[in-house]
C-alpha cells in the first residue's frame, strides 16, 4: 500500500523559516527570563482568549461547512450567553453553576428559532442571502440586548471558589481563567469525539461533503442541520457565559468576537474543525505574546520605537494575511472550498 502523504511533511524547513523560528524561540526565552511573571500572565491570557475564540469559531465553522451559510449572527449568540448569565445571576439570583448550564440552553433555543424561522429557507440559495439575513438578525439581537439590559457594560459576580487566585510563584492566576480553559478543553474534546467517533458525526461529515448523496443513502439531513446549528449556538453561548463571568459584557462584544472568529475559521481552513482549534490558539497566543516580545526586544536593544502600542489588536489580522498569502485555503482547509 502506498503511503498517504500527510500535508506539511513533504517540505523541509527552509533557511528563512529556520531564522523565523530561531528568532521566535529566542524572543520567548528572553521574555521568560526578563519578565517571568508577565510572560506566564500573557501565556495564560492568550490561552483563555484563544479558547473562547475557538468556542465561537466551532459553531461558525460547523454551520458554514454543513449549511453553507456564513452566520453573522453567531457573535450575537455569544453575547446573549453573557447577558443570559447576567439575567439569571444578577436579576433572578440564580447560582453561577445553574447559569453555566441554563444560559447555553437558552441560547440554543434562540438558535432553534433562527434556524426554523429564517435559515432553513435559505439553504442552497445564494450564500449572500444567508449573509444578509444573519447580519440582520445580528443587528436585531444587538438592539434587543441594548433595549433590555441597557448600553452600559454589565458584569456578574463569579462564585467565591472561582474568584480566588492560584499563586504560581512568579505571578497569580485567577481560577475563573483556569476554569475557562478546563471547560473549553472538555467541550472541544466532546465536539471532536461527536464528529469523529459517532455514527451521528459520520453522517454529519458525509453531509458536509455531499448533502444530497447522504440523503440518497437514507440520512435525514434536516434533523442534522438543526441539531448542529443548535449545538453551535449553545457552544457560542457557553463561551459567552465564561467570558461574561471573567471580564463582564457589553453590546460591542458580539461584533468584536464575530470578526475574530471569522479570522480564526479562515486561518484554520474552512471546513476543518481541527484547523479552527489550532488557529484559535495561534491567534490568541500571538495577540498576547507579540506585545510582550516587542517590549522585551525594545528593552534589550534600547530601540524604543519597536514597542508599538496597541499591536495586540492588529496581530490576528497580520496572522491572517501571512497565512493566506502562504496558503490561501488556510492551515488545514480543503482544497477548492473557497478557492
Amino acid at each position, binding site marked *: 500500500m502506498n503511503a498517504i502523504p500527510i500535508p506539511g511533511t513533504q517540505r523541509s524547513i527552509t533557511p528563512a523559516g529556520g531564522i523565523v523560528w530561531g528568532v521566535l524561540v529566542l524572543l520567548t526565552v528572553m521574555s521568560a527570563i526578563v519578565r517571568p511573571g508577565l510572560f506566564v500572565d500573557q501565556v495564560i491570557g492568550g490561552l483563555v482568549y484563544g479558547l473562547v475564540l475557538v468556542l465561537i469559531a466551532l459553531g461558525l465553522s460547523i454551520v458554514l461547512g454543513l449549511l453553507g451559510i456564513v452566520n453573522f449572527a453567531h457573535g450575537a449568540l455569544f453575547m446573549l450567553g453573557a447577558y443570559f448569565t447576567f439575567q439569571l445571576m444578577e436579576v433572578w439570583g440564580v447560582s453561577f453553576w445553574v447559569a453555566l448550564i441554563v444560559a447555553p440552553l437558552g441560547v440554543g433555543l434562540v438558535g432553534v428559532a433562527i434556524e426554523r424561522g429564517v435559515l432553513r429557507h435559505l439553504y*442552497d440559495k445564494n450564500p449572500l442571502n444567508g449573509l444578509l439575513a444573519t447580519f440582520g438578525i445580528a443587528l436585531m439581537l444587538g438592539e434587543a440586548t441594548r433595549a433590555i439590559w441597557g448600553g452600559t457594560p454589565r458584569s456578574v459576580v463569579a462564585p467565591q471558589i472561582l474568584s480566588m487566585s492560584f499563586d504560581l510563584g512568579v505571578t497569580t492566576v485567577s481560577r475563573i481563567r483556569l476554569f475557562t480553559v478546563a471547560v473549553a478543553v472538555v467541550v472541544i474534546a466532546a465536539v471532536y469525539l461527536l464528529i469523529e467517533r459517532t455514527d451521528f458525526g*459520520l453522517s454529519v461529515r458525509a453531509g458536509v461533503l455531499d448533502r444530497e*448523496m447522504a440523503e440518497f443513502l*437514507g440520512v435525514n*439531513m434536516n434533523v442534522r442541520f438543526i441539531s448542529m446549528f443548535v449545538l453551535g449556538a449553545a457552544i457560542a453561548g457557553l463561551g459567552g457565559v465564561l467570558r461574561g463571568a471573567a471580564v463582564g459584557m457589553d453590546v460591542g462584544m458580539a461584533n468584536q468576537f464575530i470578526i475574530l472568529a471569522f479570522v480564526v475559521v479562515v486561518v484554520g481552513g474552512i471546513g476543518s474543525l481541527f484547523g479552527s482549534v489550532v488557529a484559535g490558539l495561534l491567534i490568541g497566543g500571538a495577540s498576547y505574546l507579540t506585545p510582550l516580545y516587542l517590549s522585551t526586544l525594545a528593552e534589550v536593544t534600547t530601540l524604543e520605537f519597536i514597542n508599538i502600542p496597541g499591536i495586540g489588536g492588529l496581530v490576528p489580522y497580520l496572522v491572517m494575511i501571512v497565512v493566506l498569502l502562504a496558503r490561501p485555503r488556510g492551515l488545514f482547509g480543503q482544497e477548492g472550498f473557497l478557492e
Partner: protein
Amino acid sequence: MSLLDVSELEAGYETGQVLFGVDLSVDENEVVSLLGRNGAGKTTTMHALVGADVPRVFGGSMTFNGEDLRAHRNYQISDLGLSLVPEGRRCFRDLTVKENLRLAADHAGDPLPVEEVLDQFPELDDMRDRPSKNMSGGEQQMLAIARSLVTNPKLMLLDEPCEGLAPYIVRRIESIIQEINEKQDVSVLLVEQNVAVAVAVAERHYILDEGEIVEEVSTAQLREDDELRQEYLGV
C-alpha cells in the same frame, strides 16, 4: 405489476422541461438499460425517481414496489429498496472506504453486513482505511456500487458506471452488475452512453430521445439494427 412502473413522467429544470412523458418499467430480477444521447434526459429520469433536489417533477406517476415514489422524500427512497449509484460516483471523498459503507449501513432499514459486501470487492479489501479521494476512478466506482449494495436494494439505478474507465475495468464492472443481479437478485436500471456495456449486461433496452421513450428493444434487436443505433445513439 412490475417492480418499477413509470408512466407519463414529465420533469425539468428552471431552464425548461426535459422529460415529456417517459414510460418505462423494470421487473423483478431484470437488468434494463436506458440509452440515449447526451441531453436526452437519462440522468433527469434517474434523479426524478429518487427525489433529487432537481429536477422538479411536473406530472406522471412513478410506482416502486407498490409505493408512490412522488410521495416520498429523497432520504426515504433507499428504505423502499431503491438505490442510486449516481453519475460521477459521488463517494464521500474524505471518508474512508469503510466509513462510506458504514454510513450506508447505518441508515438502511435492512442493511447487508459491510464485511460481506467487501468480500465481493477484493479490489477494495486493502484500502478499507483509505480516504476515497485517493482511489482510482474504477475503485471509486466499485465503492459507489458497494455502498449502494449495503443498503440491500431491490432495484439499483446505475448512472453511467463505466464512464471514463479503462476497458478492463469496464469488463469488471459488467461482471459485478451480472453478479449482483444473478446471485443477489438485485434488479438493475442502467443508464449508459456505451452501447457495448448495455448489450453485455441488459436484457431489454429503452431508447430515450428528446425526453421521450422512442423505442423499446431486445438485446438482439439492438445489436442488429444499425439504423436504430445510428439515429438515436450516433454509433
